[in-house]
């Protein structure tokens, strides 16, 4: 016995000497090894930086909003990196200002959905029975309405502005998160360590917050990352049909919509906002996949 314990101790002290391993440190270490996820993360960081410093890079009023019809439909040049649109506005400036809105809507909408959907799902999964039935049937009713249609209905009812847009997209994706959280709570709650937590006298609240949610979080984080991508697409879709952010505020979807009349003469007007959407979605998906792998505790070496 003593020999096995000492060897175990030795290897431990060795690994301990390096650094204190926290759970998130471990996740980060594994994420770093995944090149595709890192590419996604780097792109996202660049996009976020561009969005945060959009005003410093290109003045909102002067470059992104002010019309300059003399300079309209210009192709990419030194002055206008990505060309100008049908009102002579710089497309690069409009894309980075539009990125602000897209990213904000994406994150806030997913935040709303995770918060509300997650809470409902956790309650449904944990308590089961009638509560579960009530909540999940309500979610089913939500699911029966196509989410984009629901978002359109909400925006139309409340009026088209940025806040309502976030709310609409957030609310329409609640059922998805409720289902994911419920499913993952169901798998976690029957595990023996939950019973063990009960056996040391933990209350329901403590069991849900300290034992179940941390163990059920991984799929939510992954879904959330991918969900930001979906939300950005929905924003673009709603803006495309004129229910998004009111003009002249730049938004990727409405830029696409504006440019489609000039598809033949000036395809760059639609190409670049389209590329911006594609790159963002791709980056978020890469990151989401990477997170899924990194968060799986069973893959720990």
């Amino acid at each position, binding site marked *: 016995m003593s020999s096995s314990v000492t060897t*175990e101790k030795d290897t*431990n002290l060795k690994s301990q000497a390096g650094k204190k391993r926290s*759970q998130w440190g471990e996740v980060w270490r594994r994420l770093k090894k995944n090149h595709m996820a890192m590419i996604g993360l780097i792109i996202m960081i660049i996009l976020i930086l561009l969005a945060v410093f959009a005003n410093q890079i290109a003045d909102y009023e002067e470059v992104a909003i002010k019309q300059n019809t003399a300079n309209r439909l210009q192709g990419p040049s030194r002055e206008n990196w990505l060309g100008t649109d049908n009102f002579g506005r710089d497309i690069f400036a409009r894309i980075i200002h539009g990125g602000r809105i897209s990213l904000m809507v994406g994150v806030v909408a997913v935040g709303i959905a995770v918060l509300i959907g997650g809470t409902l799902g956790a309650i449904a999964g944990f308590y089961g029975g009638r509560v579960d039935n009530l909540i999940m049937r309500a979610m089913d009713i939500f699911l029966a309405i196509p989410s984009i249609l629901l978002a359109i209905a909400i925006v139309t009812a409340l009026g088209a502005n940025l806040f309502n847009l976030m709310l609409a997209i957030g609310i329409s994706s609640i059922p998805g998160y409720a289902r994911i959280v419920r499913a993952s709570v169901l798998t976690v709650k029957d595990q023996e*360590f939950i019973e063990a937590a*009960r056996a040391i*006298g933990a209350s329901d609240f403590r069991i849900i917050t300290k034992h179940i949610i941390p*163990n059920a979080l991984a799929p939510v984080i992954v879904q959330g990352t991918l969900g930001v991508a979906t939300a950005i697409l929905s924003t673009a879709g709603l803006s495309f049909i004129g229910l998004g952010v009111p003009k002249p505020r730049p938004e990727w979807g409405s830029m696409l919509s504006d440019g489609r009349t000039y598809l033949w003469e000036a395809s760059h007007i639609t190409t670049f906002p389209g590329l911006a959407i594609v790159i963002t979605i791709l980056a978020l998906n890469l990151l989401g996949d990477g997170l899924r792998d990194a968060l799986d*505790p069973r893959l720990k070496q």
Partner: protein
Amino acid sequence: MSDNILEIKDLVVHYITDEGVVEAVNGLNMTLKRGETLGLVGETGAGKTTTALSILRLVPNPPGKIISGEIHFDGENLLELSEEEMRSIRGNKISMIFQDPMTSLNPVMTVGEQIAEGIEIHQGLSTDEAMEKAHEMLELVGIPRERAIDYPHQFSGGMKQRVVIAIALACNPSLLIADEPTTALDVTIQAQVLELMRNLREEFNTAMILITHDLGIVAETCDKVAVMYAGEVIEYATLEQLFENPKHPYTIGLFGSIPSLEHDVERLKPIKGLMPDPTNLPSGCPFHPRCSHAQDICKERKPIVTNIEEGHMVKCLIYEGVIEAKEVL
């Protein structure tokens, strides 16, 4: 009364499912003195774990339901307490060690946090103080305190079970329920863990219920033994009485199915048949379909407790003098 830490009277626990009522525990009686170790022995499905969960009132409900009976712990009937009062007992005065250390630890909490959790809940200590106590507990079970910041997956099976023991003993409970604590471990580690449990138990003077189907472990650790069959205790005795003088045909059958070092036998004598279907228990003595001494009356009459000698009880019609044993027992 007062030196009995635990008294279970006529406990009945059923699982009510769509397929029928599973009669898991049927009129179980059991007493345990302070500081004593009771071995709860029986086949899979005999109701051992359900009994243990009933003591903590953790029988999953639905489908499980404690139908009737009394469980007196320290003079209090646990079945009459509110859920809140019950919570203050769990982990504090009664704690449980689960069968599989691989799954009974939370994979995303450090072992230190998990040991500290019970201390935090019951002793009202700050996080730091609880953590300090958790470190002491870890050292007590033979794991260096530096490892408190590690996660369960960084431990071996035997070490995980030590952590589980540390969690269970953290609040110095007066009753420890160990549900097959060594089943998931290999034999050398089993011995270590049992040794550890015995030492700690003596140190803290903790009473223990050890659930197992391994008579070897019982012989090594227990003071008293209760043999369970179909949700009832069919024989209850001290360790010596049971091992030297088993009375119930089922207990005799259990011993008959273990190879002996002293006697050479051609073949072991397993108990024929299987555990009865708990949704459809046989009438009369539940063991009669498998019992080689069974007579017609066994189908009708339910045996009552017969005292063989001081502290040795058995439920069998043979000892009530109703039927004759077919061979010398």
